[in-house]
């Protein structure tokens, strides 16, 4: 317990240093935050502006799409803020420059240092935008306001944070072996995020099945959303499957950290 408290205070101090350094160039930081916000805003606007012309997307209304899109974006941005240090481009830069070796020398837990090594404050406005999109969806989509709904939505977001965080950890660990081909992980991370931003029945059955049974992305928010909106689950899955999402994420994260430990043991540095 005392250990956890010490770790948390250490994490807070590392983050404090990051936040102060990011405030050094204020104008640039503001533009960076605005640019980061604008990327999401532009992508969402592109969808929101064309939807009226088409009426809906695969039988889903604008509000229902907002719910799916917003949940995925909210979880992904929160995950990006928390797990940014594990993202392959960041970690591989540390590995190549040799600064990862200095992490190992410091009297602080390695994983904690990586967690605190890239805390991008500029993503905070995106969190607000994503929350607003979810809020709009919640207000206008036909779902019951109940403690069960709230619990399932919260669990879904936490599950997604764990799931994508796990993918970031796996991608980061791979950079111990290879600096190339980390872009392959982008298919799963950024691709996975985009994939679950839309109702998954718009994809071919094989693609949806891969991302349901092989990579359990459908359990994260799509099945819970179907359940809350009173829509039937695909493939005749029992209703209970909609509640499994919160389990899929932590399982992926636990597996990812097991892989991380193997990677750290294997780590040899690059000789720089």
């Amino acid at each position, binding site marked *: 317990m005392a250990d956890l408290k010490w770790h948390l205070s250490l994490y807070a101090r590392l983050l404090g240093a990051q936040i102060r350094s990011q405030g050094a*160039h204020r*104008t*640039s*930081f*503001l*533009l*960076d*935050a*605005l*640019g*980061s916000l*604008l*990327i999401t*805003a*532009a*992508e969402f*606007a*592109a*969808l929101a*502006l*064309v*939807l*009226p*012309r*088409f009426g809906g*997307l*695969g039988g889903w209304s604008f509000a229902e799409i907002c719910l799916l899109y917003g949940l995925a974006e909210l979880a992904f941005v929160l995950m990006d803020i928390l797990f940014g240090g594990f993202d392959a481009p960041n970690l591989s830069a540390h590995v190549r420059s040799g600064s990862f070796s200095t992490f190992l020398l410091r009297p602080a837990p390695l994983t904690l240092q990586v967690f605190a090594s890239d805390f991008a404050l*500029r993503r905070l406005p995106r969190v607000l935008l994503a929350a607003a999109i979810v809020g709009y969806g919640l207000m206008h989509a036909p779902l019951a306001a109940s403690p069960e709904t709230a619990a399932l939505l919260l669990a879904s977001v936490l599950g997604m944070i764990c799931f994508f965080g796990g993918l970031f950890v796996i991608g980061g660990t791979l950079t111990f072996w290879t600096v*190339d*081909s980390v*872009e*392959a992980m*982008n*298919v799963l991370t950024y*691709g996975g995020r*985009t*994939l679950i931003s*839309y*109702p998954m029945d*718009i*994809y*071919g059955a094989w*693609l949806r099945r891969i991302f349901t049974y092989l990579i359990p992305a459908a359990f994260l928010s799509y099945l819970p959303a179907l359940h809350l909106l009173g829509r039937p689950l695909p493939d005749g899955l029992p209703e209970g499957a909609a509640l499994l999402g919160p389990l899929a994420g932590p399982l992926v994260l636990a597996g990812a950290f097991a892989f991380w430990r193997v990677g750290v043991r294997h780590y040899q540095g690059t000789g720089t």
Partner: protein
Amino acid sequence: MTTMPAPPMGGCLSRLSRLALPWAVARLGFRRQFAYPQAALWGLITNAFFGLLRVAVLLALFGTRPQVAGYTPQDAITYTGLTQAFIMAFSLFGWFDFMRAVHRGEVTSDLLRPASLLGFWAAQDAGRALGQLVLRGLPMLLIFQVIWGLNWPPGPLAWAQVILSVLLAWALGFLFRFLVNCAAFWSPDAVGFGRFAWALLGLGCGFLMPLAFFPEGFRAALAWTPFPGMLNTTLELWVGVTTGGAAWAALGAQLGWTLALLLTCQFTLRAGLRRLEVAGG
């Protein structure tokens, strides 16, 4: 800083040798793209996967409608294939190379060359763009052709207009990217400015959705910006949404914006170089 060194031979450079430097620079820019084939392959796979998702979203939007805003579902697939093919060639996700050269002071060695700074970077980017088009663009079109089938320009005139439009879209896009990178002369950390600009570019050039699908007012506002000329004009010429007189007018708009941005770039670059102070060391 503003005086150019004398040409190496002391005399007037012939027209041929004046073109020799940009040609060599462009060739090197082209060849450099092939240095990491594995990374390019993974990039292609990632882009193809995103293409797959985008096609699914567009087809779901169409539903059973045979045509929306001049686009058939097959046109929409072609549009997606083209946008995915041009991402790297047109650097639609951003480009910070010149910014980096200014921040690191490397721009001074560019200034020592017997060529214009803008011309030198344009030649380099032309080579880079062509390399990316060969390495990632053409394979992407092939993937789309095999999986879904593409619509191709209907005849020699349409092909000529498309090729002209691709060249202008590259030139216009390059000048816009270069102009944004010039912010480095005024700010020590202009990356944020760049990210802001690339987000505008993604929406405005029709990369995220065909501009024809947007509401009238939004499109009218965009028509006053150079963004549609950086991608959307080319796509509409290719799929045949823009034809006849409108096609020539669209090409004219691209050319006009290219000239306007060229002047703006030269003006900004001159002002920026006057401000330039490079740290010694």
